[in-house]
């Protein structure tokens, strides 16, 4: 079937498939970041419940380093901010790709519609 299509439409279909894959990959990244945000929020709640002089440990690669409640909260808040920025950037990319996807879809439908007439 695709052999009968003009090369331009074939190219657009290939682009459409590529964009669809990119959107799926972004959507997976987005859910991973959202899960990390939820985990950070829960960890922060737990840290805030601790006594100010509580002994806290932080995983660093294979090591576990002793730290304090205050330092851990600061680190976790920084991480939350980074995650939120990454999420914003992914959402923007997703929006751009979705709009390109719709544009291509319309172009292909138009091209196929013209052929059918």
């Amino acid at each position: 079937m695709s052999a009968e299509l003009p090369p331009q439409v074939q190219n657009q279909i290939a682009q459409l498939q590529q964009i669809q894959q990119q959107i799926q990959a972004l959507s997976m990244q987005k859910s991973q970041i959202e899960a990390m945000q939820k985990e950070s929020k829960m960890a922060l709640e737990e840290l805030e419940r601790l006594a100010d002089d509580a002994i806290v440990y932080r995983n660093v690669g294979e090591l576990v380093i002793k730290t304090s409640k205050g330092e851990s909260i600061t680190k976790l808040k920084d991480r939350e901010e980074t995650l939120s920025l990454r999420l914003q950037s992914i959402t923007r990319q997703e929006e751009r790709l979705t709009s390109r996807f719709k544009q291509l879809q319309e172009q292909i439908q138009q091209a196929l519609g013209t052929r059918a007439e």
Partner: protein
Amino acid sequence: MAGVSEDIRNLAARHQEFQRQAEALRQQMNMVQASITSCDQTIITINELKTASAEGKIAETMVPVGFGSFVHAEIKNADKVIVDLGSGFSAEKTADEAIETLNRRKEQLTKILEQMNTSLTNYLQGMQALETEAAKLQQPGQA
């Protein structure tokens, strides 16, 4: 007729998307369920250790060194537990506080699991609705 097959193709594509999302959700639900089970097992272990080291006794145990092999060990203080708080942080707590934290975590996970279950039901209902719609379109006389 061409319109009907186009509609069926669209329904099939949406059905496939629902199926993909439902499958991903099921996998995540299995992971959440595994975490809940792990919380339960940890609570049992902490309680058992508390009993074994009650009244100043030193609990005798074995530490795994890999490949099903162990070395003997004694738990010096079963009342100090390092509990995972998530995001790579852990805190030292008493056994009772550790159990409290684990129970809280279990409650949170159970709520998440319930929310996921609702989403899964929505996906399955969505799939069923699409199947009914497709069946109607395929009925003779409808096409």
